[in-house]
């Protein structure tokens, strides 16, 4: 259970580049729920994810994960409970290290790392069977440095790594945005399988309305640092891409009205 209340974050506060990325965000996600986050560029959806992951510390508000207040925890401490996949396929894996080493690092996510052997035989056997599930033929190439793999393969492995130990929360930050359509759909398929099989609580940022409609049981739409729409249950099931497009249009027109009205007021009264 993730509970976010009154979360605020402003970047470059007090300068001309001030961006109010999160403004009074309130959100609670039940265990096992798969939430898609939509929004225009700069709407704060990635910021929301990073705030939960601990990339930065929020200005105010609280984040509770399974009852624990993680608002001020550093990133690596939160990682004990949170699995992450990044937008950039190169971000989630260590390129110079082998597939097996990368996975063995993930197998110890958030656990104490001592002087035990990094790649014991028992772990390697486990790796093989779990990599086989990806159906990419990688199980025979466990010693290959990950840097030699394609973006799609790396992203699939990152997904596997993030969910290796069942996380309390899985954060997916537009993890298919940098992939070609075919690979992207493969990774999405894998995402769905991993999330459903593990009953993982998931927060997925996406640009694709199709993905938002097809996946998960809840859709959130953000705009200018706020959550504007929230669909769950039957409402979410009935949601179509055209509905979402209409909502985006509406948000855009509202923005224009804001500016237009200001101009009107200025020309009439100032």
């Amino acid at each position, binding site marked *: 259970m993730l509970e976010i209340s009154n979360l605020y974050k402003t970047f470059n506060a007090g300068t001309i580049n001030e961006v109010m990325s999160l403004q009074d965000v309130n959100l609670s996600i039940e265990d096992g729920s798969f939430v898609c986050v939509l929004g225009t560029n700069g709407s704060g959806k990635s910021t929301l994810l990073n705030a939960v*992951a601990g990339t930065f510390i929020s200005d105010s508000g609280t984040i509770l994960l399974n009852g624990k207040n993680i608002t001020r925890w*550093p*990133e*690596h*401490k939160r*990682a*004990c409970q*949170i*699995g*992450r996949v*990044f937008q950039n396929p*190169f*971000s*989630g*894996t*260590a*390129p*110079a*290290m082998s597939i097996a*080493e*990368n996975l*063995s*690092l*993930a197998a*110890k*996510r*958030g*656990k104490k*790392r*001592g*002087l*035990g*052997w*990094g*790649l014991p035989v028992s772990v390697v056997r486990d790796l093989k069977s779990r990599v086989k599930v990806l159906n990419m033929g990688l199980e025979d190439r466990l010693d290959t*440095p990950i840097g030699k793999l394609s973006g799609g393969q790396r992203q699939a492995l990152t997904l596997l*790594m*993030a969910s290796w130990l069942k996380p309390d929360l899985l954060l997916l930050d537009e993890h298919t945005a940098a992939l070609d359509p075919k690979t992207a759909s493969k990774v999405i398929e894998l995402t769905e399988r991993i999330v459903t099989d593990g009953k993982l609580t998931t927060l997925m940022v996406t640009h694709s309305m199709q993905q938002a409609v097809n996946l998960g049981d809840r859709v959130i739409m953000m705009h200018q640092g706020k959550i504007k729409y929230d669909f769950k249950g039957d409402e979410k099931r009935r949601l179509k891409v055209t509905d979402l497009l209409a909502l985006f249009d509406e948000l855009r027109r509202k923005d224009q009205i804001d500016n237009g009205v200001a101009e009107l007021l200025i020309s009439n009264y100032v």
Partner: protein
Amino acid sequence: MTLLIGSITIGLILALLALGIFISFRIFDFPDITAEGSFTFGAAITASQIVAGMSPVLATLLAFVGGLLAGSATGLIHTRFKINPLLSGILVMTALYSVNLHVMGKSNVPLLSQSTLFTWFEQFSVSVSGKDTVVNLIGWSVPAKDLWTLLFCFLIILAFSLLLLWFFRTNIGTAMRATGDNDQMIRALGVNTKMMIIFGVALSNGMIALAGSLLAQFQGFADVQMGIGMMVWGLASVIIGEALISDNSLGLVIAGAVIGAVLFRLLVAIALRWGMNPNDLKLITAGFVFLALVLPGFMKQTKKIKLFR
């Protein structure tokens, strides 16, 4: 031939320096110039403590601890206060210059009559093969004690290489390598990368201080200037090793750094023997590292140009 054996021995001692530089530069991608200070720091600690009557083994260990502390200072300055790695190293290196003078009490401490690790090695060789024994080595006559010293240095380096190889394959060592490779990823897997950097830079400088300590004992003095240029020296060794071994498996890379250190020392000895002015040594070393850094990229470019024609 004696000169050759002496050069290889010094090369092996400096292999510890190369391994230290390898940890900071290659594993952590941390250009750590603390090396110049901690090398002298190790020498200063050992020399002054031996003169004060401490056992050579303890004095050598103390040098290692001193290096660990110097490295942690650099790591802390970088991670805690977000100062750029190079500048953090420069700060600690500069500070160490004064510390070294204080530790030694003067700018040069000779170890003429004191017993050091190397006088122990000599005593051991005398007790085994007798005094002034000369061994015939492929036509050259070589004093047996020099060969024994060489063997001891080799064993020390072998032990350290194996220890490093083992360490970087443990869970914590793997996490350290990942920190240098992709820190964002390993943070997302729950590793405190700041601690890893502090620990890694400390380890690196511990080994470099150890190299300084051994060199001071081998050559019989510690000098406040002896660390100058040592970072580039270590880097040159690592680069030669990488050129020899174009493979990125950890064991071979470590072996490469050791071989590189010995080879580089030999090259320098030969060049000096041919009449190179010792004053030019650092200039030539710097030039060599510059070329080694630039050439691979340059060669790729010319290849590309050829391809397009």
